[in-house]
């Protein structure tokens, strides 16, 4: 399978009064189309930091990130289009916009890209249906939804602009195990059927079962581990 993402020698140190914290320490990683990469590790090991660096929300101190062989440039306009076209984020706390309905939340990334309103609507409805969010729920404000519903809306939103990479930070962290499993299944399906490059970061080792590639993270260092599959 084609390499989508290549991360090479990423370092990130946070400077704090209490002392510097090396959150990401010389991390290298490859991820491919249609495959699920799972990174597990204890709290504070640097998983979120690594994911944000990949998603360009955080800048690394050194190292390189290549997507389809191209270095992710650091100019503001490049970052904007990178976030829009390449990356879809799924967060532990959903990070939906409470003032908007589920449908509007999914339309938002397309809206920012000036997609025509009717096309936005069609695609958002289609994505939400696929996530199992029916018409009534689509029109409800997201702050009235359950955790599982919120996370499915969030996944739909991540897919809105049809990105190549889905970055999921503890997607099951706020869900019960059944709902969590449902969400993981969706993410796996996105890799298998849509050919997305899915990276899941979690401390829930059970997710390792679905991983094509698994890593263990500790004190900012990443170490490949064998998976059963």
């Amino acid at each position: 399978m084609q390499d989508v993402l290549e991360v090479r020698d990423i370092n990130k140190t946070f400077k704090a009064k209490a002392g510097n914290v090396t959150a990401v320490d010389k991390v290298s990683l490859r991820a491919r189309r249609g495959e699920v990469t799972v990174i597990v590790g204890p709290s504070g090991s640097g998983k979120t930091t690594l994911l944000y660096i990949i998603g360009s929300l955080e800048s690394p101190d050194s190292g390189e990130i290549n997507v389809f062989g191209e270095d992710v440039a650091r100019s503001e306009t490049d970052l904007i289009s990178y976030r829009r076209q390449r990356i879809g984020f799924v967060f532990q706390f959903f990070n939906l916009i409470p003032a908007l309905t589920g449908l509007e939340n999914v339309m938002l990334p397309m809206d920012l890209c000036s997609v025509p309103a009717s096309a936005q609507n069609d695609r958002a409805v289609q994505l939400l249906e696929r996530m199992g969010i029916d018409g009534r729920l689509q029109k409800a404000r997201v702050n009235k939804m359950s955790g599982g519903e919120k996370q499915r809306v969030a996944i739909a939103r991540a897919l809105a602009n049809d990105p190549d990479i889905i970055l999921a930070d503890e997607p099951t962290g706020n869900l019960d195990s059944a709902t969590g499993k449902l969400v993981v299944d969706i993410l796996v399906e996105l890799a298998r059927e849509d050919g997305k490059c899915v990276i899941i970061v979690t401390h829930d080792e059970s997710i390792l079962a679905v991983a094509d590639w698994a890593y263990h993270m500790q004190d900012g260092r990443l170490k490949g581990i064998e998976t059963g599959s």
Partner: protein
Amino acid sequence: MRALKRGFRNFRRHPLRNLVVILLLFVCLTFSLSMLAVKLASDSQVQEVKESVGNYGEIKVSSDYTMQVFEEERSKSESERQTQSRTMTAEEQLAQRTRFLVSEEITDAFSQEAEVITYDKVLDARISVDDLTNSAMESMLSMRERNVQTGGTAPAALSSDSFSFEGNTNGSSLSDFMVGSKKLTEGSFYSYQDYLKANPVVIIEKTLAETNELSVGDTLTATISGQSGKSGEVDLTIIGIYETVQAEEQVAGQETFNPMGDTLYAPLSVVQKLYNTPGYVQLGSYYFDSEDSVAVLQQVFDNELSDGTLEFATDQESFEVISDPLTKVGKTSMIGLAGALGACALIILLAMAIIIGGRTRELGVLKAIGATNRQVMAQYAVEVICICLVAIILAMGVSAMISQKMGNWLLSDDTATAEQSVTQGNGNGMPQMGFGGAMDSRLYKEGSGFSSGSQESLKLNVVYQGSLFLYGILILFFIGLLGMAVPVIWITRLKPARVLSIE
């Protein structure tokens, strides 16, 4: 669902919070706009006043000089005075008569100044008129004689066949008629041509005309001062009859007492001839383009025309009486405006800080999914503008209703003092008898003694001008921009990674 719609939706989603912000803003904006309206009104009113008050001046013999001459005169004994006047040459007699007068050369020269808009010359003189009696004057003289015992002094020059002649260059611009204390009831005014040709015409008072059975077209015979015999007499044709407005009002229904009845009006050149003072006037009277020119003209007078005996008297004082409260109100309203705008600024800054502070996560999300800073700002701009727009529209409406009251309230303190001084200035109801009264600081413009003493009370007309609407938009812009500063600073400094993982 573009930024506009999202912003508007956010605006609608917090009705209570927005209501509070709008209410606070509305109060401060209403105050600002009212203050601004008052300021604009007071400015324009001062400007208006400048065109009618404070733009008048006259050149005449200074009261200091007059006092000084009187003092010298008083120190002489009666016999001294008599021998002096008997031994005077014709030239000395002319000098004697003109010592309280101004040479026309000077008044004419001053009229050439560019700032001078109108020019008139006035001469007041007591002239004897044969076969004309003033019954009112007779009764008043007897009244005065009675007063002598209680300390009053009867002017020696007064007698019942001596009349006050007032001459100027154009009858229709006589100040008594301009201020409305007298009005022509029959005939016409003498014209500038009458003045140039020295046509012997005269305007007399109604009661005087009635008692002496005179009407328009009849003639009077006046005597030239210091001359006698037929050669010293001038026949004056009556061309107009006037009445004294206030005197009539005061004594409606009673026996007419009209001390002003002894004033006759004639072309200046005629009065000069009768008084035997060719080339001399009592004063030159000038209107200028604006109050602003007075300082310049004063300079011209001081440097070029003043010889120590003359003064340049202006109505600066009455201008100040009227304009000072207005100017003060203007200043106060500016302070109020500044304060209220400051409060507006504070409110919008605080409100936006609260609004944004509660939505940092949303900002982070927007950035994480690829919103540009401009897209985020547009959304907040809509929200800010909605809040400010509602507040300012309400404020415009309400301040249109209350700014007049604000103006009155601001003016109320000052008006009391202003009205007092106005009354003091004009309240001496007694007519000024004769000419050259040393105490007479009254300006020619204000008319003689019977002019209305009850000046209209000072009022600020806060017209809600169109320019205020523009200022309103400007203020809207100003607080809108200020309100936007908060999200702008917040967004440019926001690190999405910090806010997205917060529970």
